[in-house]
């Protein structure tokens, strides 16, 4: 069979590739070369079986009757109901909400802290979802806006003694302002070029913070940032953590609400149109520069906002919290969740933050698992966990529109 032959070749090829790594070992003590052929046999056998299984699985799914559209991204009936039938999704949403509100009473403070972090990343994911998922602007330096928010709070607190609540909107605005500043010259670039420039911008922000000791306290970081205040009450650490949890839940809900409204608005549709086909979009009268800039600044706004909360949760911020790895993490949430899908991005953010925390045993292999999951996604679900659904509109005759 052809498949077996190909898998055999794959196995051999992997044996050849891993030969220097796995089979040859120079023993520096006895100064001899050890040949560990058995390792090689295992590699060959393993890849052969994997490759064969994959090929067979592929063949089977291909022989199944092809479904209506060529992109392998159809709407099965249960999905249809899940997203368009109120009697199905309303109870589910309410249950999820109740679980979110009750959860902190069931787990200890350490866990709550992790949940707060996860929800912070949910907001980040939703913010980047506006830029990448809806408007289609590939941004590899998104975490810089998060840093802008966090440092806005920290610096305003040190220099002007501003509290959390005063700093929260200012952090968001600072993020949006930086978004405009960067977006203005950069957004005329497309695709790869935009990605490279934003990548550079992300690194520059970190490097500037790291090296500016007077203004940003450089590589020392900033410590003793106050936690969120509640009407001037004195909160214990436990209470304050709980309070922070509910704050970030509120923020995440706000982000979900707002992006949900936006994606089915005049502006949101224009963003999606630009993502789908720039030339057609401008031919329909969409002002490309203005629309892209608004998406970019608004996405940055969320990062700035939640950056303030991040600084308040950690009480300590350091440039190393804002590296490319974090940008990549947030981007994977958007890609993994399904570009533009709010439910998908939220789920992916929770998974990507919580899973590594609870799989400490796998800590060593974290990046390996991460890479594996990403490759698997590209192969099996290239459109993400949940492909975005679009809103239906009632016809004029059918009175009483609601949604």
């Amino acid at each position, binding site marked *: 069979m052809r498949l077996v032959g190909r898998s055999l070749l794959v196995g051999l090829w992997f044996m050849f590739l891993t030969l220097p790594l796995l089979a040859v070992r120079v023993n520096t003590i006895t100064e001899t070369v050890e040949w560990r052929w058995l390792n090689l046999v295992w590699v060959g056998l393993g890849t052969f079986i994997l490759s064969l299984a994959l090929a067979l699985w592929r063949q089977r799914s291909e022989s199944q009757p092809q479904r209506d559209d060529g992109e392998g991204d159809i709407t099965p009936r249960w999905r249809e109901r899940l997203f368009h039938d109120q009697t199905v999704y309303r109870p589910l949403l309410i249950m999820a909400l109740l679980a979110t509100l009750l959860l902190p009473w069931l787990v200890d403070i350490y866990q709550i802290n992790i949940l707060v972090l996860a929800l912070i990343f949910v907001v980040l994911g939703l913010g980047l979802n506006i830029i990448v998922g809806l408007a289609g602007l590939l941004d590899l330096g998104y975490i810089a806006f998060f840093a802008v928010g966090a440092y806005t709070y920290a610096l305003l607190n040190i220099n002007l003694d501003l509290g959390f609540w005063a700093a929260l909107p200012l952090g968001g605005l600072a993020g949006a302002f930086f978004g405009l500043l960067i977006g203005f010259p950069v957004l005329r670039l497309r695709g790869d070029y935009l990605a490279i420039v934003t990548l550079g911008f992300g690194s520059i922000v970190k490097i500037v913070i790291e090296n500016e000791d007077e203004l940003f306290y450089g590589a020392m970081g900033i410590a003793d940032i106050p936690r969120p205040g509640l009407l001037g009450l004195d909160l214990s650490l436990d209470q304050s953590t709980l309070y922070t949890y509910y704050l970030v839940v509120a923020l995440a809900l706000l982000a979900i609400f707002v992006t949900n409204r936006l994606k089915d608005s005049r502006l*949101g*549709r224009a963003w*999606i149109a630009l993502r789908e086909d720039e030339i057609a979009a401008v031919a329909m*009268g969409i002002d490309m520069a203005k629309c892209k800039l608004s998406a970019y600044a608004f996405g940055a706004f969320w990062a700035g906002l939640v950056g303030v909360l991040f600084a308040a949760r950690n009480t300590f911020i350091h440039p190393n919290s804002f590296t490319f790895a974090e940008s990549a993490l947030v981007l994977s949430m958007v890609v993994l969740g399904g570009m533009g899908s709010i439910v998908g991005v939220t789920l992916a953010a929770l998974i990507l933050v919580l899973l590594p925390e609870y799989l400490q045993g796998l800590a060593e292999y974290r990046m390996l698992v991460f890479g594996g999951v990403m490759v698997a996604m590209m192969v099996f679900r290239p459109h993400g966990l949940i492909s975005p659904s679009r809103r239906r509109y009632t016809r004029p005759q059918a009175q009483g529109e609601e949604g």
Partner: protein
Amino acid sequence: MALLQVENLCMDFGGLRAVDQVSLSVEDGEIVALIGPNGAGKTTFFNCVTGHYAPTGGEIVISPPQGERARIDGLKPNRVTALGLARTFQNIRLFPAMTVLENVMIGRHCRTRTSLLGAILRGPGTRRQERETIDTSYRLLEKVGLLDVADEFARNLSYGGQRRLEIARALATDPFLLLLDEPAAGMNPQETRELDELIVRIRDEEGLAILLIEHDMPLVMNLSDRIYVMEYGCKIAEGTPQQIRSNPRVIKAYLGEQDDA
């Protein structure tokens, strides 16, 4: 005053002159065809008129039925659309991941206004505007016969359906002049006949003028009030269908070539 008046339009790509001194005009209520062999520069001419290219010479003036006379060469495409020119594309350019209805709703973008905050709060003003957008879009889908697939993704439409959706989307921008780039390409004879009726119906019901590029000769001869012929970037003839049919230069350049094929 002609709706669209193009004078001595030139477009150079490096050393290549794709459009050479072409003048053309479209009057109110007319259907005008632009024909010519492959590579004659017809699409390039469209791209100049609709702002996708900035022409290297000549001028383009519009006189909308309601509105100021204005020079539009060099304006950005979205400005040109806002002034009342709408187009379709030779190689279909829809928004595949949006529904058919949403594709048409995009066309309303330049005729509506909402701020970011308005979209989030969704106040009565925004809701009324959305309602109008939806109603208009449904009306246009009905006109082009795509009502029953309104909630489908645009990428799932048949080829003919996609071409008609492009027309509906262009109409949603409230144009006074519609530019169609090979609307019948890839359609079967039955679909072409329906398209023929649709174009006339649009002209009569929406009260607009149409400039179309087309290779389907029976369609062109049947539809057009006047025809312009281009070859190698130059205009080689203009006139009524009868005049064009008997013009020796056109027969040699274009129709003759078709006969051979």
